């Protein structure tokens, strides 16, 4: 494999930015945001340059590596800290740095009133560096470092306004739930080390054939747990909604476009493991299908615009996970949906931020309405993202989502039918809740309070939105034209040679998808556009709505199943600790003290009594010797 010496700059530039801004303190306040943006942009530049170089090389020489240093060297076991840039990583590098740079630019204006803007940019740069390490690491261990790094950055940014206790709690919740997933990743690494003796991607791929299927299945399930934690997949999904406590650019970058897709990256990167472990693959598909419905249902009931979008993110990542679980045919489609989703969801989050910016940070959509006239640019860019997520041709989602639905049907048999119908219903619900967001926010009559003065955002904010909107429109077509992305990623995946015929013609699938989407849009239209929308959420709603409003009881479930038994266990352990361990320790002390105070009476300070004691002792000793000798 070709080696390179310049990959490190991709990570080093934003990392240096973060270091300068964090260590420089207040001195860097004036130009901190510019430095942060410049670092992210130059990293994007390096990424583009690497793409040019990669395009010039023949296919088999495209992946390049860079060895940084010898990390762990114990006996036969050796791990080098190394970077690997191949066709898969470059997609992520460009997405992370590209969308990241746009969001840096957006944040300059969005955060301009915040006195901690420099710290915000420092964290953003830290996130970019960690995320790049995640996708560039050449072993599970390097990936793990980046994985923890993005978890830290996410924690810091969700709790960026930690003066509000609810926000600080949200960041803790995200951190703890991610920790559960991280346990899965560390178990997967341990399994790889124990059964294969290596943790590098190349090494594991070589060893897959010599490893038992049971070990691979265990490793696959553990990788899935990790992916579920990071990507907010069932059953570790509950943190994403609360993560919206962070500033909106963070929601766009970390909790929509990049970090939450790390789980999909992990599954795709470990394709050799999953290809050899069909059971694990099936579990991936099931988790994806459950999450895509779960997120979609929650999305229908949320009045908070950011939480509705977060539920939608969860659902769309469910699509990606499902595709990634469908084996070699699905990986490329998962990545394609990931890229297009990166564009349109980031764009819509920035649009939501723009609306909030103009509405005194109000997030309740029932207090919006008729904003189209006041925020035309936001309306247009958000609308393009809306058309993209719906999958209306020729927007981006049409290409990526239809491919996933096709692949789901192609799985064949009952599995294919169940998955296909699930993805179709998911698409319909997606259309419903996104139309609801559009109608509540931009059309109808005004429902906001008199002190709100909605206005269009400054150009620093709408320019990134416009660029992302262009991506929402064109990326699907560009990536799927002549199967561009599929061919690009082809060498990485283990394809079976025979040509797979579609079970259902793509055109039929598209027609079905569009029909379902139209039904969803129509229901939303009749429910929200043709009727007056109350500005306070009605209470007399069906049980289903009530449950959906509470995130389908996910928190209650976690509290009942994990939190309360956990608390009971810790209470018991504390009691046991106090009674047994502390009791033993204190008992020893009390025995010593008691016997001490009893014996203290002998130390009365009178020389004569000491002398008497010596005398008695001597007599006793002599008596004892006498008895023994006799």
């Amino acid at each position, binding site marked *: 494999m070709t080696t390179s010496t310049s990959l490190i700059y991709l990570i080093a530039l934003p990392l240096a930015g973060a270091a300068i801004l964090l260590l420089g303190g207040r001195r860097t306040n004036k130009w901190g945001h510019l430095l942060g943006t410049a670092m992210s942009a130059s990293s994007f530049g390096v990424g583009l340059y690497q793409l040019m170089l990669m395009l010039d090389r023949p296919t088999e020489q495209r992946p390049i590596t860079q060895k940084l240093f010898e990390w762990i060297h114990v006996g036969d076991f050796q791990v080098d800290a190394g970077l690997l840039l191949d066709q898969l990583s470059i997609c992520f590098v460009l997405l992370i740095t590209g969308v990241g740079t746009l969001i840096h630019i957006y944040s300059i204006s969005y955060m301009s009133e915040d006195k901690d803007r420099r710290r915000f940019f420092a964290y953003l740069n830290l996130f970019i560096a960690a995320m790049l390490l995640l996708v560039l690491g050449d072993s599970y261990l390097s990936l793990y470092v980046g994985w923890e790094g993005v978890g830290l950055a996410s924690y810091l940014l969700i709790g960026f306004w930690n003066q509000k206790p609810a926000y600080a709690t949200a960041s803790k919740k995200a951190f703890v739930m991610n920790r559960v997933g991280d346990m899965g990743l560390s178990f997967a690494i341990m399994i790889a080390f124990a059964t294969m003796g290596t943790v590098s991607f190349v090494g594991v791929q070589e060893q897959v054939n010599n490893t038992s299927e049971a070990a691979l299945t265990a490793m696959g399930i553990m990788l899935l747990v990790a992916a579920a934690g990071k990507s907010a997949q069932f059953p570790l999904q509950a943190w994403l909604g609360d993560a919206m406590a962070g500033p909106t650019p963070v929601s766009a970058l970390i909790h929509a476009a990049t970090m939450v897709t790390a789980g999909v990256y992990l599954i795709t990167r470990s394709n050799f493991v999953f290809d050899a472990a069909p059971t694990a693959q099936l579990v991936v598909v099931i988790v994806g299908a459950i999450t895509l419905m779960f997120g979609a249902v929650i999305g229908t009931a949320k009045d908070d615009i950011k939480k509705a979008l977060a539920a939608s993110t969860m659902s769309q990542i469910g699509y990606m996970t499902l595709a990634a679980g469908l084996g070699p045919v699905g990986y490329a489609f998962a990545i394609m949906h990931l890229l297009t989703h990166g564009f349109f969801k980031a764009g819509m989050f920035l649009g939501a931020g723009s609306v909030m910016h103009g509405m005194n940070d109000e997030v309740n959509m029932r207090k919006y309405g008729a904003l189209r006239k006041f925020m035309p640019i936001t309306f247009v860019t958000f609308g393009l993202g809306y058309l993209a997520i719906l999958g209306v041709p020729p927007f981006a989602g049409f290409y990526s989502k239809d491919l996933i639905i096709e692949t789901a049907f192609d799985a064949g048999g009952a599995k294919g039918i169940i998955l296909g119908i699930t993805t179709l219903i998911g698409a319909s619900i997606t259309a419903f809740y996104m139309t609801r967001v559009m109608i509540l926010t931009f059309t109808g009559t005004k429902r906001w309070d008199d002190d709100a003065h909605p206005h269009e955002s400054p150009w620093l904010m709408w320019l990134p939105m416009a660029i992302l909107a262009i991506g929402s429109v064109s990326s699907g077509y560009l990536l799927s034209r002549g199967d561009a992305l599929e061919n690009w990623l082809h060498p990485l995946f283990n394809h079976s040679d025979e040509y797979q015929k579609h079970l259902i013609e793509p055109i039929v699938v598209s027609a079905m998808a569009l029909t379902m989407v139209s039904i969803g849009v129509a229901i939303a239209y009749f429910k929200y556009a043709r009727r007056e929308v109350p500005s306070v959420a009605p209470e007399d709603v069906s049980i289903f709505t009530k449950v959906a409003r509470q995130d389908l009881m996910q928190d209650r479930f976690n509290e009942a199943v994990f939190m309360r038994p956990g608390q009971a266990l810790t209470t018991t352990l504390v009691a046991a600790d106090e009674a047994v361990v502390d009791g033993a320790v204190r008992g020893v002390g009390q025995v010593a003290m008691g016997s001490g105070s009893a014996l203290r009476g002998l130390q009365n*300070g009178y*020389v004569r009594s000491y002398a008497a004691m010596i005398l008695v002792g001597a007599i006793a000793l002599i008596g004892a010797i006498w008895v023994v000798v006799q």
Partner: protein
Amino acid sequence: MDASNYLYISALLFTIGAVGVVVRRNAIVVFMCIELMLNAANLSFVTFSRINGNLDGQVMAFFTMVVAACEVVVGLAIIVTIYRSRRSASVDDASLLKR
């Protein structure tokens, strides 16, 4: 004369000394009783030397005398000092160390 009579006297002297140490309060008297016990031990040493027909016991008696002389010097100095500071030679008064 039977040598064991000396041993009886030695035991008697030692007992008188030991009882004196335990029951008397005056430091000087206690001190004299200690001397009595030392000398009882000396008498035993010398008697055993005589019984066994060698000089080991005599040598040990000399050592005891040297130690007793030193002890008298130090002990009397302490008793005089205590008497000067406390106006009392009672050993029961000098009980501050228990606190």
